[in-house]
């Protein structure tokens, strides 16, 4: 049988200092970027009007912007979107002097400007989004609530299934993933929409899976290999789950690749965020979750002699330690 990383024995914990440096090198510039330029929120969150059109010929972007400016809709963004004659027009600021929560005033103004510049019938509207700032604020609030509450729900579940040391380590790793992903979104200037929030949450779930699978192995190995140090157990567990990680990340990245290439403009940012999430999730499971777990065990030792408890709600029958040794030798 083909087997990647069969009997791998890398010293993952030994190089953790370098891993921290890598994380810092990625996250810090990202956060700096975030602070300086902020996030690029979508219309859903800021309120505003979005029109996606297909024109019969190439559009003079400047002319459309000028027409909108003259009609009191200032600072509109006009971008090419996907194929040649597809454009997206975003007007975040409502037409001067109108009630921004009454979305139709601005939306119809954008329509007028297009009629004037392109001519009626020379374009078709594919998609319209018009969101008042009130609704936008509500959606933003809900998105943050979703992220925070799911974070705590998962923490509670981990605390129930594992003991708190494992749970805390997993949550720190997850927090790292969220921060890294937000930094990634900021650097890539991806538009933060509800779909992106969905991607961040899915990424959190995915990365957590990875951490859980390693920790599951740690729990089991603590029982199996009574003579090894905690660091050895961690290294062993990461190494043993390495083939699984490679395979699962491989199939996941394969589908994400398909989505990025063939899924279309709306889905691409989602796929990109997940793509990044697979990498940061793998990285954090190995280089953040495990070392943090070790640090926690050193700071607050558990009842196990090596500083870790082996209790679990569903005890798995331990295999004889001697057999395991022989096979690995």
């Amino acid at each position, binding site marked *: 049988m083909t087997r990647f990383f069969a009997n791998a024995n890398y010293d993952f914990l030994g190089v953790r200092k370098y891993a921290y440096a890598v994380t810092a090198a990625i996250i810090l510039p990202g956060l700096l970027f975030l602070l300086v330029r902020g996030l690029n929120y979508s219309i859903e969150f800021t309120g505003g009007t979005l029109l996606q059109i297909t024109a019969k010929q190439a559009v003079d972007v400047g002319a459309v912007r000028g027409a909108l400016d003259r009609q009191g809709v200032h600072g509109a963004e006009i971008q090419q979107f996907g194929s040649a004659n597809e454009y997206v027009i975003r007007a975040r600021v409502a037409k001067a002097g109108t*009630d921004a929560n009454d*979305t139709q005033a601005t939306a119809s103004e954008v329509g007028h400007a297009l009629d004037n510049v392109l001519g009626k019938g020379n374009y078709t509207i594919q998609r*319209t989004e018009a969101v008042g700032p009130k*609704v936008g604020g509500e959606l933003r609030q809900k998105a943050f609530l979703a992220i925070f509450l*799911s974070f705590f729900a998962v923490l509670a579940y981990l605390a129930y299934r594992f003991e708190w040391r494992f749970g805390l380590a997993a949550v720190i790793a997850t927090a790292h993933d969220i921060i890294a992903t937000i930094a990634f979104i900021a650097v890539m200037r991806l538009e933060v929409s509800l779909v992106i929030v969905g991607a961040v949450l899915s990424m959190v779930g995915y990365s957590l899976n990875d951490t859980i699978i390693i920790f599951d192995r740690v729990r089991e190995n603590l029982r199996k290999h009574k003579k090894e140090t905690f660091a050895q157990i961690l290294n062993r567990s990461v190494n043993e789950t390495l083939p699984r990680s490679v395979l699962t990340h491989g199939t996941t990245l394969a589908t994400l690749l398909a989505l990025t290439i063939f899924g*279309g403009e709306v889905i691409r940012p989602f796929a990109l965020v997940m793509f990044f999430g697979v990498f940061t999730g793998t990285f954090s499971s190995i280089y953040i979750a495990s070392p943090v777990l070790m640090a926690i065990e050193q700071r607050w030792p558990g009842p196990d002699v090596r500083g870790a408890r082996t209790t679990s709600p569903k005890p*798995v029958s331990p295999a004889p330690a001697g057999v395991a040794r022989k096979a690995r030798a």
Partner: protein
Amino acid sequence: MFATIRNRLIVIAVLVIGSVFVLVPRSITLRERDPQTGVMRDTVVKQVPIKRGLDLQGGMHLALELDQSKQVSSDPKRDIELALTVLRKRIDEFGVTEPLIQKVGDSRIVVELAGITDPARAKAIVQRSAFLEFKITDKTRALEKALPGMDRTLRGMGVKGVDTATQKRPSAVEQLLGTDSIKNLKDTTTKARDTTTKAKEKGKDTTKKIATARVKGGDTTAKGADTAEKAADTTSVPGGVLESLVQPAAAVAGGQVPGEFLVAETAFPRVDSLLNLPEVRRTLPRGVTLRWAASPTSVGVQSYRYLYALDEKSIVTGSNLEDARAQLDPLTNGPIVTFELDRAGGRKFGEETGKHVGDYMAIILDGRVQGRPPVIQSRIGRNGQITLGGKGLQEAQDLALTLKAGALPIPLKIVEERQVGASLGADSIRKGITAGLVGTALVILIMIGYYRLSGVLSILALGLYILFTFGGLAALGATLTLPGLAGLVLSIGIAVDANVLIFERIREELLLGKTIRLSVDEGFKHAMNAIIDSNVSTVLTALFLFQFGTGPVKGFAVTLIMGIVASMISAVFVVRTFYLIWLDRRPTMSTLSI
């Protein structure tokens, strides 16, 4: 209970048959109004019974709130309920398949119309107030008498004929005189548009399209144009602003309707705003009210807007309406809306019209006079008609249905609109399917390349996974959205994770020197902990997404949860069964293809 292979196979067979059964394309009756004849028509379409979200099938999502900028609601809770009932009736009449109309929170109504092809029209039907009034035109020459007084008030406020209080806006007078530079003119027309957008919100179609009833179209003579110029001339004479801009219609374009005035279309927004000043309004005698015509009229080369002085008291309103119907007038072949009043309304209408024979009656829809007021020739009973000049039957149908469904208590404003064209939706589905096929092909390659025959088993299970997921979505009546479709494609890559975990575990057990059968058993047993833990955490995040997300994202969460349940069945239960069969058939097998 599931211990024997036979029982396991029965369970799998039941699941497969159930999934296939709920997914078999079936006939769905779509009830739609025929755009030509206006008759409700049922069309039968065969389709896979999975609900597609608006982003996949095209359609419109609107969130509406009471617009209290012009009219303050005394009881918003009651008004939103009333509006909900009215919208339900209207959309029912409009003929959309499976519309969603619901109240969200205390003050918002969400309307979702799938597959509509004319979003502007649907929006107009939702937003039109449809408040119908009948009023007698004023015979006391109240406005003419009040005009000098109004101008005195305006002068007192600093509004003069030529240079206006608002310097930035070129005065209507300047436009009439044509002294403006082209740029200025442009500015003014955009300004004019500002004001009219407000009107459009109220009844977009009405103001723009419903034209004159019984216009005395013929007499657009040179005389009219002359007078227009004369009217313009008089403005330079230091006099009242309004007096110069508001002309009795009889003097300009002829006609003998009392209380009828003409204002140049270019001056219309300015006059409207002046007349709406509370100080000016106060000078108008009690019992008289002003209303503009719904659309401009051309007299000669000039475009004018009729202004009517009317008795404030309506003789009857749309609340007395029992039925309204769009028809083609047998005489002119133009579209008309015939209506029937209820008993009480009919009696009142008859009494009032009996008293006013020889007077003119204005038909006012959402504050705008429809066409020129016709003369009351005799007592009118319960039946009447509104003539729409030169517009399509569809306009008449839309008017009839909104009238019939009743008026909105307070106008509604659209606080959120999402609309996706059907072609874009179809395009998204196509792209999603392509991505899904390519993704699946890659996963098959990886799994079979790495795990050989065991990989084939997991791919068979993956096929069942896809079948179960769609089956579950159909059975639950869940909605598949674009993010949901993306999530589904992604989950194909993640769904094999359970199999990867199991297979890796089996390999480890085999390496420990255990027998094949024992290794398989132990592999499944040991992998379960990790599989359950990781799936539960994913379900938890999905539940929060479902709770807080909007339509498309909700769809994503549902698909995610459905996918996890399906993958637990296919990757664990089904693959286990396959192994059991395999090992049963080849008890002497010495190496497992894994």
